């Protein structure tokens, strides 16, 4: 029995055309959610089908692909998706942010700054930033069309009234090119400033919700806030136990069952990169750990 032969990157060419058209539209209207005919993919909804479809549509044989999940290259999801593209497209893969030409990510933006020519593909669960306050799709579409975003600030107001500060720590809403309000996907708000005037192309795919949106390179992306409660990047106060970084987004890891814990960089590539440069830091850290 012959093994099944896949079209390059799994999707047929017509589908890729349809997705590319949606992407072009999205790039032409930064932050605007473009509906697209999301296909059945060999993984269920909620496992990155939107991101996979976008990646499949933009991938070429000479591309170098990196896939991360919560910043790590080696979690199950990242590994599965990477294997998927190796199988269906045969492209070269890497864990290095700087080497990659296409990076598919779930819920984090890499620490290393991106450069022109790179494409960052985000996996998005709920693309509509107003959904939690306004359940009607008809109404939210109108609000975007008419730029009626007062409701977004109502949510932030509620946070401050309830918690004394804006409590949203991820999926923090942003305004793109002064026009559309967008959900940056569940990336920590720590990552929001990286989206602003980023030289890379940022694409967002929501498979279940069937929406694609985009931020073209060098586009203004501003996090929403109040004059007297300005946006603040939130980061755990600590140092990475492996590489000593004080400026990267940290994960908290439970080290043993006696309450021992340590902080490590969420971005594994960044952390490794720092460690190969400074082996002594790692040794010192493991003495402490």
């Amino acid at each position, binding site marked *: 029995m012959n093994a099944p032969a896949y079209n390059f990157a799994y999707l047929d060419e017509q589908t890729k055309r349809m997705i590319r058209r949606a992407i072009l539209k999205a790039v032409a209207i930064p932050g605007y959610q473009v509906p697209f005919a999301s296909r059945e993919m060999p993984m269920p909804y909620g496992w990155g089908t939107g991101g996979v479809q976008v990646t499949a549509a933009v991938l070429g044989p000479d591309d170098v692909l990196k896939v991360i999940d919560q910043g790590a290259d080696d979690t199950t999801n990242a590994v599965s998706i990477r294997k998927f593209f190796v199988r269906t497209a045969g492209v070269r893969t890497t864990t290095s942010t700087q080497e990659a030409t296409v990076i598919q990510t779930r819920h984090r933006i890499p620490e290393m700054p991106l450069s022109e020519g790179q494409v960052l593909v985000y996996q998005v669960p709920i693309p509509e930033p107003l959904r939690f*306050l306004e359940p009607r799709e008809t109404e939210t579409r*109108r609000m975007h069309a*008419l730029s*009626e*975003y*007062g*409701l977004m*600030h*109502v949510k932030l*107001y*509620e946070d*401050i*009234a*309830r918690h004394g500060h804006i409590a949203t720590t991820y999926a923090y809403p942003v305004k793109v090119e002064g026009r559309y309000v967008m959900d940056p996907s569940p990336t920590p708000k720590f990552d929001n400033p990286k989206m602003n005037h980023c030289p890379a192309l940022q694409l967002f795919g929501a498979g279940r919700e069937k929406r694609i949106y985009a931020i073209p390179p060098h586009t203004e992306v501003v996090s929403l806030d*109040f*004059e*007297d*409660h300005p946006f603040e990047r939130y980061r755990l106060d600590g140092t990475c136990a492996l590489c000593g970084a004080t400026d990267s987004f940290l994960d908290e890891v439970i080290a043993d069952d006696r309450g021992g814990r340590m902080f490590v960089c969420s971005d594994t590539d960044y952390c490794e990169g720092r460690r190969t440069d400074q082996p002594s830091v790692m040794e010192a850290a493991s003495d402490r750990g």
Partner: protein
Amino acid sequence: MTVDDEPLLIADGLSKWYGRQLGCCDVSFRLYEGEVIAVVGESGSGKSTLLQLLCAQLAPSAGRVLYRMRDGVTRDLAALGEAERRFLFRTDWGFVHQDAALGLRMTVSAGANVGERLMAVGWRHYGRIRDTATNWLDRVELDRARIDDSPQTYSGGMRQRLQIARNLVTQPRLVLMDEPTGGLDVSVQARLLDLLRGLVADLRLSVVIVTHDLAVARLLSHRIMVMKDGQVIETGLTDQVLDDPREPYTQLLVSSILPP
């Protein structure tokens, strides 16, 4: 209030059919600044349809609604773009529903409810938004300590007062009310009516109030329009129409009230 100033709202031959069912027919009137006009009638009279037509929530089958914008230019509501109409609805107009839950966001706090319109027109200072909301809560006699509570924890009368605050925070010139005291206890009604009287006078609001309660009409309105089966039966000064009713239906309405 000189007699030469222009009307704020003009209804001109407004008619609405729902298929073959008549909503209202050929309604015309002019509303001036600081004036309250009551539309009274029993169920099915067309008064609620009229209200929806006046704020462009429904498109008329015939006739037009003209509104004098803040810049002094009178415009046909049908000629406005949707964005303009929605903007008017959020700033220059108020709509008080009979069921306060329809006019409020029940899932956010009272303060956010009052502040929403301000945020919608670009206010970006949390402290100022909150202060303004607090002032309005005081004004409608709500306990300012409950500013962070959800309206779900409020009584009917409190919700109604919150709805009024939410509508008036952007200082609209025209307020439409649909049976604002309906379903409330009499003592609560009295308090609400008193509040409305005061606010109408202080803010020089123009109001179209739909009610089936003639006592409410007498208390709040300068002029009255009596409707039945979609038609305007009689119109004029409130005390004139209620004290000296001319039409048979009006006489019937007035004589049907039970004295307490």
